């Protein structure tokens, strides 16, 4: 057991240099993560009112509509980004690599 990282071997599998393979996240998780990040990109594009004409803005939640839309886009992007982080694989070094660390 390693005090710093809990149990790296249990979390990441065995050696990456041939003796074993780290467990990969499931394919659906990788695809979902990618789709969520694309969603974040689209929400960013929608947050900037480049598609708006010069018409006077309406009110949404008491704010000018383009301001409210930007806030809603960022709120949705925060949710998607948060889920994407939970699906992100951040592998730990194996016990063998830990032992070899300079």
């Amino acid at each position, binding site marked *: 057991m390693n005090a710093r990282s809990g149990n790296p071997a249990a979390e990441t599998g065995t050696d990456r240099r041939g003796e074993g393979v780290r467990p990969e996240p499931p394919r659906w998780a990788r695809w979902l993560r990618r789709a969520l990040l694309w969603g974040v990109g689209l929400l960013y594009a929608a947050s900037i009112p480049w598609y708006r004409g010069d018409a006077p803005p309406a009110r949404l939640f*008491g704010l000018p509509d383009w301001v409210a839309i930007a*806030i809603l886009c960022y709120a949705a992007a925060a949710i998607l980004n948060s889920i994407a982080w939970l699906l992100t694989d951040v592998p730990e070094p194996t016990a063998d690599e830990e032992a070899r660390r300079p």
Partner: protein
Amino acid sequence: MMFERIGVAGLIGYLAILIGIALAARLARKSGSPADHFLAGRGLGVFVLFLTLYATAYSGNSLLGYPGQAYRQGFSWVMATGFMLSIIVVFHALAPKLRPIAVREGFVTPGDWVRFRFSGEPGSRALLLSVSSLMAVALANFLFGSLKAMGELTEQFTGAAISYEWGVFLLAGMVLFYETVGGMRAVAWTDALQGVLMMLGLGALLHWLLAGSGGLGSLTNQILEVRPGAADVPELREQINWFSTIALMGLASVVYPQAIQRIYAARSGRVLRHSFALMSFMPLMTTLVVTLIGLAAIAQFRGLGDIEADRVMPLLLGAWAREGLWLSLAAMIVFLGALAAIMSTADSVLLSLASVAAEDLFGRSRRKAGTTRFGKRIAVVVMAAMALLAVLARDVTLWGVIELKMELLIQCVPAFLIAIHWSRFRARPALVGLAFGVAIAIAGVAFDAKRISGVHIGVVGFAVNAAIACIGSLLGSPGSASQRVCCSE
């Protein structure tokens, strides 16, 4: 007068708690090594890592500079929520790949990555020095902004019982004390306390503002009375600037040395991704709140100049505190929360600056405990110099300081983001690209051409920098075997 007394008493109590935390962190240290001092022995868990990331990311710039900029710019400053979130988005491209290598190789500073990635290549030493120098300059700039904000807030809140100058020196001394005594452990623990205070304070202030103004609709009406065109859709140039600011902040912030060191300091990959998942919501809970505070100030304080606009937060707190004893106490919590945010950034920046200077610029070995002592001495010198500068150069807008820092820092991005994903990326073209990028950014600032059609000069410099580095790498030889192992997955 009551409010000023409460302010001084609250400040003294808060500083006493910080001293206690620093001493506790000193007792908890495991060794005198740089890894223990600068990274808390790589043992930060989800709660502390999240709060230290939060308190570090949201600084004096966020708490004073962003309301000030919202006051100047109006509704379009809602972009700030987007660019603060973009930092956590762009980290997807760096943290998952950098963290395993950093832990495996025992990195302490951002320069360790550059040293490892370009090891043995022509130009690698010059690239390391260039990247580290830019980071040091950006960190010093960050420290200057934080010290300036500390002085402003202290003077406003204590009714000038503690002057701006004394506020800068007193709080700089306190940060220096707990950072040198307790290292990253003290910084992270004080950050945790400061993060909680900041969240409580901002929540209370927002509630007071919205309750006082009659809700968002009423707030909008009040702003339109003062600035009739404020609700109009921004012009094309401002929209381009919106996009450019998101790119500038999102890209440059991922190479903040103190943020990179927190990636190294996390206890595990799981802790890191959970902390980032929580951090995704902080722009809504912090940046959006301070933006609304700045907007509310448009109606409350008419006709503030550019420099005075950075003081809208303390002015609002002062107005709140004059409404009675209980509101004075509530204002004190907000004040301490804001001060906590600023100090937590300053301490992280100082710690990072000390490690970057000691190891990457002066080439001290990370295996020697003497490097930690050397880093502490550097921290003392830098803090003294920046405190003096903050006293001498008070009349600079905080947003101006932030932009300058980002325009330099973004030039380091290719050495991290491109290098970690592309094995053919070479040190020499990266160095040439960086030189061009920095030259463009500096020329833009020197000749007062900070934007080209709304695009920040630093972003233009970054585009040129990345193009030169990539084309030069394509024309060069393929990478060595070790570089392909680390970067080609």
